[in-house]
């Protein structure tokens, strides 16, 4: 790499300000720090309560045994604090099938969301920084296809995959997860903002290969955009229900979402054991990783989203 390190760092600086335009500091005190308003806070607080009550309900009820689940007020603790017992039961029930579902989900997320992010980053970079034959067609096809409801594709995709012998295997869940048109759009707008074209020209003049230019110069500049796309594709794959539902018959390949639904449905089947305390505890365990990821990484994805909306 013959680019001097100083020039790279100044352009990082420049692109960072470009990527988060006018986020802070520009407003004068009167506009930036208006008087706090109690009534507005209370009214918005109603929405806050609405979003948090079900989550509180989930946490509280994960601490109850099945009998006290039926016999106590839903929004307060009651009886024996059974959270740990419930967790142990959840992970050991039916020979530890819950852990198997967790591992499956991790596999689908790592391969599906990881692959989707990789493809979106490469594709978005190409759309933002290269002119190539057929670019207009690529754009038209992708935008057109986004408007097609995913479920219109479900049945034919199932039939195609079943002919290829892919149904009931992890591939049937992973391959369709690899495409994220929203991710492509976000990376494209982000890359055109964050990567100065002159920097790429300079690297090419120095004889760096396109791949090397991409890895050494562009990739580091795309950081917040990549985190944002990764988080959103992770949510999409972690929470995926419809696709595995049609593709998988064998419970040992289920992701958590299908497993949870199967446990819940068990109570409705003749002779099935009702395990509502395990359904609730397993639900809590299922949402923890994503909620944690969003809280820990919020600085990254919020700046990534802000840059993505520049173009709107």
């Amino acid at each position: 790499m013959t680019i001097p390190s100083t020039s790279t760092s100044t352009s990082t600086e420049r692109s960072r300000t470009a990527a988060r335009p006018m986020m802070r500091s520009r407003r004068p005190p009167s506009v930036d720090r208006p008087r706090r308003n109690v009534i507005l806070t209370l009214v918005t607080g109603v929405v806050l309560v609405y979003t948090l009550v079900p989550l509180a309900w989930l946490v509280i009820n994960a601490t109850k045994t099945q009998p006290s689940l039926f016999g106590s007020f839903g929004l307060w603790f009651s009886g024996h604090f059974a959270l740990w017992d419930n967790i142990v039961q959840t992970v050991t029930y039916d020979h530890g099938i819950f852990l198997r579902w967790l591992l499956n989900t991790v596999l689908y997320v790592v391969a599906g969301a990881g692959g989707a992010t990789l493809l979106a980053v490469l594709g978005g970079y190409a759309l933002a920084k290269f002119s190539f034959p057929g670019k207009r067609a690529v754009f038209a096809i992708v935008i057109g296809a986004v408007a097609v409801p995913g479920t219109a594709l479900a049945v034919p995709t199932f039939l195609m995959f079943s002919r290829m012998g892919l149904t009931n295997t992890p591939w049937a869940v992973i391959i369709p997860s690899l495409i994220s048109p929203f991710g492509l759009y976000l990376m494209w707008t982000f890359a055109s903002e964050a990567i100065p074209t002159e920097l790429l020209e300079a690297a090419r003049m120095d004889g760096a290969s396109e791949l090397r230019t991409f890895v050494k110069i562009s990739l580091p500049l795309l950081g917040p955009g990549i985190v944002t796309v990764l988080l959103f594709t992770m949510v999409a794959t972690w929470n995926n229900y419809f696709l595995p539902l049609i593709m998988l018959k064998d419970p040992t390949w289920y992701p958590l979402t299908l497993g949870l639904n199967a446990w819940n449905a068990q109570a409705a089947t003749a002779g099935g054991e009702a395990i509502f305390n395990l359904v609730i505890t397993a639900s809590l365990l299922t949402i923890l990783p994503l909620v944690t990821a969003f809280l820990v990484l919020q600085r990254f994805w919020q700046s990534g989203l802000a840059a993505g909306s520049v173009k709107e």
Partner: protein
Amino acid sequence: MAPKEWQLVTQTHPAPARAPRSRRRVARSWVGWGFIGPFMTVFTLVFLAPIVYSIYLSLFRQQLVGGNSFVGLDNYRRAFADAQFWSSVARVGLFLAVQVPIMLGIALFVALAIDSGRLFGRNFFRISIFLPYAVPAVVATLMWGFMYGTRFGLIGNIDAALGITLSDPLSPGLVLASIGNIVTWEFVGYNMLIFYSALRVVPTSLYEAAEIDGAGQFRVISAIKLPAIRGALVIATIFSIIGSFQLFNEPSILQNLAPNAITTYFTPNLYAYSLSFSGQQYNYSATVAIIMGLITMAIAYVVQLRGMRKEA
């Protein structure tokens, strides 16, 4: 929005001045495919091929005697006369007309409230209201389904405490509203974030000018903020329309808790699913999916046109 951006990208590549560079530029022009190629390959497999296959399927019929035969538009004629199909379309149409405005209205209100800077603890508001987005539809539906329950849910608690009998949220008359509530809970924060991200990039000089002119908060909202985020409003509306027409996860999961209220043709998607996976009527199922796809695209297109025309 997008085509304008496309021009912008091409314009940043000025015509090369010298001959050697021009040769490099021609060679380079195919380089873009090296980056977009992987995306387009998978996209062809999981988007384009199923669409083509779907159209093919809709023109044939599988019969016990005679096998697969070409029937032209017979499947479409059957769909147009299918009362179950149209009742499901009417149901999601009603859902769309009521739930989407409520959800987007709340999301817009919260985004404006947070952006105004007048809330106490606005970061807490922003991240908390967004959190339900990270909760899988399965978990959201199970949680609300349990809370709706008259046995150990909150409705049951309220009944017991007040000695009254509220109507069951999972009864046939109310189940659509109950589903609307679940969907609103899941996506209010996501839409809020889209609006909020768009609001953050409104140039603050506009607010300063408005303040000098003595414009009040509501004037600033109607004259500056709302026009500035029109693109985001149009996109959120289109996503919500597509989401409503694809309604599947919530009713499908609630079926276990409310088997009498949710029929196999509750939504068009559930209908297409039941046709394929319970009825083995793949051809007719593909036809239903295509018709829904066309209706969705038509409505999304009209919304986009109207949104853009106002902009002009």
